[in-house]
């Protein structure tokens, strides 16, 4: 049964299976996202899509929240803008994001978001933790310095390719994505080398080894076809 509610004062309606983010996007209302990707399941990991709900003390992730009848949602309050910038600052401070020499410079979702959301400088100290590059795969490499732990690679490999070679290991600051239960990627027997993880990665963490600085462009169009096929099968 359709629900009616408000986004930024605009009357909107949502089908049962629609999240706040989906409704907002249908209406052309911009809510920033990073871990969310159309065609994959949602995890609400990055919190960039947080929105405020009237009467609710804490913001909620729009990608992972279904609207309720009569809800009043606000997508771009001053408080949210501050939180979002802080989230970005934390992502930049935790990793080692050096756009100037990055393979996706100019084509990076994190870089785009920082620009879009007005993160002009970082108020936090950089952690400068040394992180590894695994370039053992013959075509692809993962640079953990640039990983934001969005888990898109984990989800696309599991949900679309069906190989499930990616997982997340460790807790807190030591969290990292791993291949084949923490074996070098090049030794993976289950990786089909399809490249889907490379294309859904929002940053330069996953890239083709053949690409030099700023040469790598991600292409997630294939997900639309899968969505279409799935919709047809339902």
């Amino acid at each position, binding site marked *: 049964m359709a629900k009616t509610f408000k986004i930024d004062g605009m009357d909107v309606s949502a089908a049962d299976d629609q999240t706040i983010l989906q409704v907002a996007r249908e209406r052309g209302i911009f809510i920033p996202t990073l871990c969310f990707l159309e065609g994959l399941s949602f995890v609400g990991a990055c919190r960039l899509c947080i929105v405020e709900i009237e009467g609710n003390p804490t913001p909620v992730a729009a990608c992972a929240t279904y609207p309720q009848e009569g809800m009043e949602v606000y997508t771009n309050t001053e408080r949210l803008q501050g939180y979002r910038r802080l989230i970005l600052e934390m992502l930049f401070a935790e990793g080692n994001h050096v756009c100037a*020499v990055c393979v996706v410079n100019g084509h990076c979702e994190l870089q785009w978001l920082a620009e879009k959301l007005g993160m002009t400088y970082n108020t936090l100290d950089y952690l400068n933790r040394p992180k590894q590059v695994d*370039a053992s795969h013959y075509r692809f490499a993962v640079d953990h310095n640039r990983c934001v732990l969005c888990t898109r690679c984990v989800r696309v490999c599991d949900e679309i390719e069906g190989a499930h070679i990616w997982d997340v290991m460790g807790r807190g600051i030591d969290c990292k994505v791993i291949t084949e239960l923490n074996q070098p990627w090049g030794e993976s027997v289950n990786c089909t080398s399809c490249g889907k993880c490379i294309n859904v990665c929002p940053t330069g963490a996953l890239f083709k080894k053949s690409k030099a*600085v700023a040469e790598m462009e991600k292409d997630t169009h294939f997900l639309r076809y899968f969505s279409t096929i799935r919709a047809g099968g339902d």
Partner: protein
Amino acid sequence: MTQTITIDPVTRIEGHSKITLFLDDAGEVHDAQFHVTQFRGFELLSEGRPFREMPSLMARICGICPISHLIASAKACDELLAVRIPETAVKLRQMVNLAQMVQSHALSFFYLSSPDLLLGMDSNPDNRHIFGVAQAHPEMARGGVKLRQFGQRTIEILAGKRIHPAWIVPGGVTEPLTADRRDQILAMIPEAKQFILNALTLFKARLHEFADEIRTFANFPTLHMGLVTKANGLEFYDGDLRIIGADGKTLVPAVDKYHYQEVIGEAVEPYSYLKSPYYKPRGYPNGMYRVGPLSRLNIVSHAGTLLADQELAQFKALPDDQRQSSFHYHYARLIEMLFGVERIEQLLHEPDILSTHVHALASPNAYEGVGISEAPRGTLLHHYKIDDDGLIRYVNLIIATGNNNLAMNKGVLQVAQHYIHGGEIKEGALNRVEAVIRAFDPCLSCSTHAIGQMPLHIELVAPDGTVVNEVKRG
């Protein structure tokens, strides 16, 4: 009582350095040290990075000559791929390297050194800067600005942006040249040539005023090193790395780049972060050699373009002892700028310059790569080793300026001994101590933008550490 004179910082150069002069009891200079006071560490921080990042990473060594590092680095990476890159890519890289040469030489000659050359070494320091030149010789100042613009604009037209473009990549370049952009560069060439010819005319007419400087500015016999074409012509991108003796005779016709360490040693002095490379067969420090514009013109037999060849012939006609003077780095820079503009014009008329085949695709096929090119300040060498996964495991860089370190130190001593006597320090004498360094146009870091006078601080320090005299300006 022995004294020490410190010049800190040295002004109108690129980067940070200071000079220490040691005086003996009679107040005569008995030793001099040129200290490079900054530390970078690029060789270490690139370990573990994918090799394809190297050109862009190395470009960050310098904001003035990013192109030089991009070229040497990309050439080393081509060696890792073990491919022959498309001919058009070679020509486009040559062109951007020449444009870099022009803009950097213009910066050195007009912005940094022309105040000394056109206003005089002893002129009032309050006006001894590019704005002073703009007042006294407005056409020269304008020419300098326009020439720098020619170089930078050519880089931008070819590579997309002026500083740190990502256009030069392992295997070639990312984008071909279009007819429209070719014509934009061609349109700038006549004016650029004329500016250089005007500067040459003025410079040559005033050379007689600098007889003392020519005699004392790091004027001593050394070896010279630089790239040459197969026909012994001027070459900045590829070719044979030649070493000649002070007598002009060839010592090493072509250094085997994978065995450069048998020819070039790298000494480290505790007073400077800049390494002191030397010609190994002669040992340290006797194996002093020079690189850069002066050396290149001393090595080659001809330039390879019409006007530059005419100017080079005049330069070659100078007496031998003059051609060993580092003062003539300025002269050589003007001739090289002329060659650069003419050679760019030649390349733009090559029939295949608009070919779209500009990027060879390959995986790494070698564990080791050495790239050598000529930067504005001299021979630049990048040496990389990678592991099975294509990650950098070893980097050695011999930066153009470093090659001249021994000669710069000795040059400072020569000038100081000639101009400073009895502990008396005249402003013009100190300016000459700095000016000999400026003649080499050392690029000690990325970029420094000298407008007017930077503060100059000289201390006379007694052996017990007390400051007995102090001079400040700025």
